[in-house]
């Protein structure tokens, strides 16, 4: 009884609380038993290959998709209630702007639907788009459009921001700008959950990284923890005649990939792996060994059996 109560308290205090979340499409288990608690004020990156279940998880948090099993609470209530209270702001994937309305009109309209919106001018300024309030989206660059969608997401003055690949269409400079304005926004204690495929963004901006694979969470922790979890180093080399079984059969290998004619191997003991590699494939050349980054951890944790890691 006491335990149930404390669980309920956790759910009530958490920004996002997921228990036993499952969603199936046909035979595919898109989300296959996810438990997750995000505390208010956390900035969390959600990583995983395509089809890992990131977007489905995000959709269930937003209430756009109903789970087959399990519970979602956002600030202690259902997603629908949280949305109705304007507690959630989201940048969804894909183009979702109207070409026959101006930027200012769209943000104003969305603001008018919320009960306690941010002043529209504030939202435009925070997103850095006050200069093109009178323009239509079809006259904007990809990065500028993303910032319009950012303004749409934050005009409700949400406590939780959910961003699905927010910087997908941006160049490096614009991405920096975007994260700078994000940082200013979250300094006031807002919670952010963002899905991304730019690992350096997760490394730089997230307090916490969650890796998903095949509908499950395979790693969850700070960037340093996730990196340590995968351990080891990454070996890159050109290996003529390398085949899948040879590389996978090397000792201490935790993950491998063939990329641009090179072999990329994650290893928990690079000395052992390298010696074996050179014995079996003496022609290997252009060898590089790097300490594993988040990218390596990502590769290791999402490519191999998830059970051992969990």
């Amino acid at each position, binding site marked *: 009884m006491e335990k149930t109560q404390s669980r309920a308290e956790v759910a009530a205090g958490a920004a996002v609380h997921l228990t036993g979340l499952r969603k199936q499409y046909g035979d595919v288990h898109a989300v296959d038993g996810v438990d997750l608690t995000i505390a208010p004020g956390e900035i969390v990156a959600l990583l995983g290959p395509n089809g890992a279940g990131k977007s489905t998880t995000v959709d269930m948090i937003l209430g756009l998709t109903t789970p087959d099993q399990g519970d979602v609470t956002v600030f202690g209530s259902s997603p629908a209630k949280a949305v109705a209270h304007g507690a*959630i702001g989201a940048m969804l*994937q894909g183009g979702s702007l109207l070409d026959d309305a101006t930027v200012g009109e769209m943000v104003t*309209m969305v603001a*008018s*639907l*919320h009960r306690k919106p941010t002043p529209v001018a504030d939202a435009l300024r925070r997103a850095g788009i006050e200069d093109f309030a009178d323009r239509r989206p079809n006259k904007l660059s990809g990065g500028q459009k993303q910032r319009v969608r950012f303004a*749409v997401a934050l005009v409700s003055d949400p406590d939780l921001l959910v961003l699905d690949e927010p910087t997908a269409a941006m160049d490096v400079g614009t991405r920096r700008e975007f994260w700078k304005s994000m940082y200013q926004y979250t300094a006031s204690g807002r919670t952010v959950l963002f899905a991304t495929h730019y690992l350096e963004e997760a490394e730089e901006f997230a307090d916490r990284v969650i890796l998903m694979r095949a509908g499950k969470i395979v790693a969850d922790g700070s960037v340093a923890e996730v990196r340590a979890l995968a351990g080891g180093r990454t070996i890159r080399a050109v290996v003529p005649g390398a085949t899948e079984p040879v590389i996978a059969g090397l000792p201490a290998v935790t993950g491998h990939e063939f990329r641009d004619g090179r072999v990329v191997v994650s290893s928990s003991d690079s000395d052992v792996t390298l010696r074996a590699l050179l014995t079996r494939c003496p022609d290997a050349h252009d060898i590089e060994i790097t300490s594993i980054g988040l990218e390596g951890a990502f590769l290791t944790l999402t490519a191999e059996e998830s059970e051992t890691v969990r």
Partner: protein
Amino acid sequence: MSTTYVRMEIFRTFRNTRFVFFAIAFPVLLFLLQATVFVNADAPDHAKVAAVLMVNMMAFGTISGAMSVGAKLAFERAAGWQRQLRLTPLSGPGYLTGKAISGMLVTLPPLLLVPLVAVVFQGVRIDAGGWLHIVLGIWLGAIPFVLLGLLLGQFGTADSMQPVNMVVTMGMGFLGGLWIPIESMPGWLHTVSQVMPSYWLIQIARPVVTSDLTTGFGTAAGVLAIFGLVFGAAMIRRYRKDSARV
């Protein structure tokens, strides 16, 4: 739902040149053309015939305007704007109601411009009660067409909606007695035309301008009400299915 939402919908509609042409300019021009070419200006019954043509073109403009909501719906669905709006307190019914209200309001320009042109240039004269009957009758009669637009908009994509709307509007125009007046129709076409809801929309207003080939206001209103119920029910059903799937 907010008035800001409805207002933006209306602004967006009037920015669409296709809408301005087909729902406003086209019915006005077609009326002037038909009234000058088909009827001799000196003929004693000129004003009476012009009034019949006026009703047809009012109905045509209103239908074009009402069905324009479908294209917007299809676009917003495809572009993910609907999903974005689902993250606001705006409910599904609120979203559709806003679209329907804006659809009703954007029918007003053709509904008022065609009679204005008819009075000024073609000498059409009708008493105040008659005008009220015609304008209000056709305007309320637009409800089933707004619902049909919202229904089609949930099936079509942003690209397919233009041809779909075009085919449906032209079908209503040719077969439903708007472009070819029912007076000039061969018997078999007159029979076919009664399948089209547009036929019944002109029958709403026809008793005011002529006593030929009228069905009576009550029958017309009843048939349109049934069309409205069918389109409305199908539209809501489709919306529920669609939003459960996304």
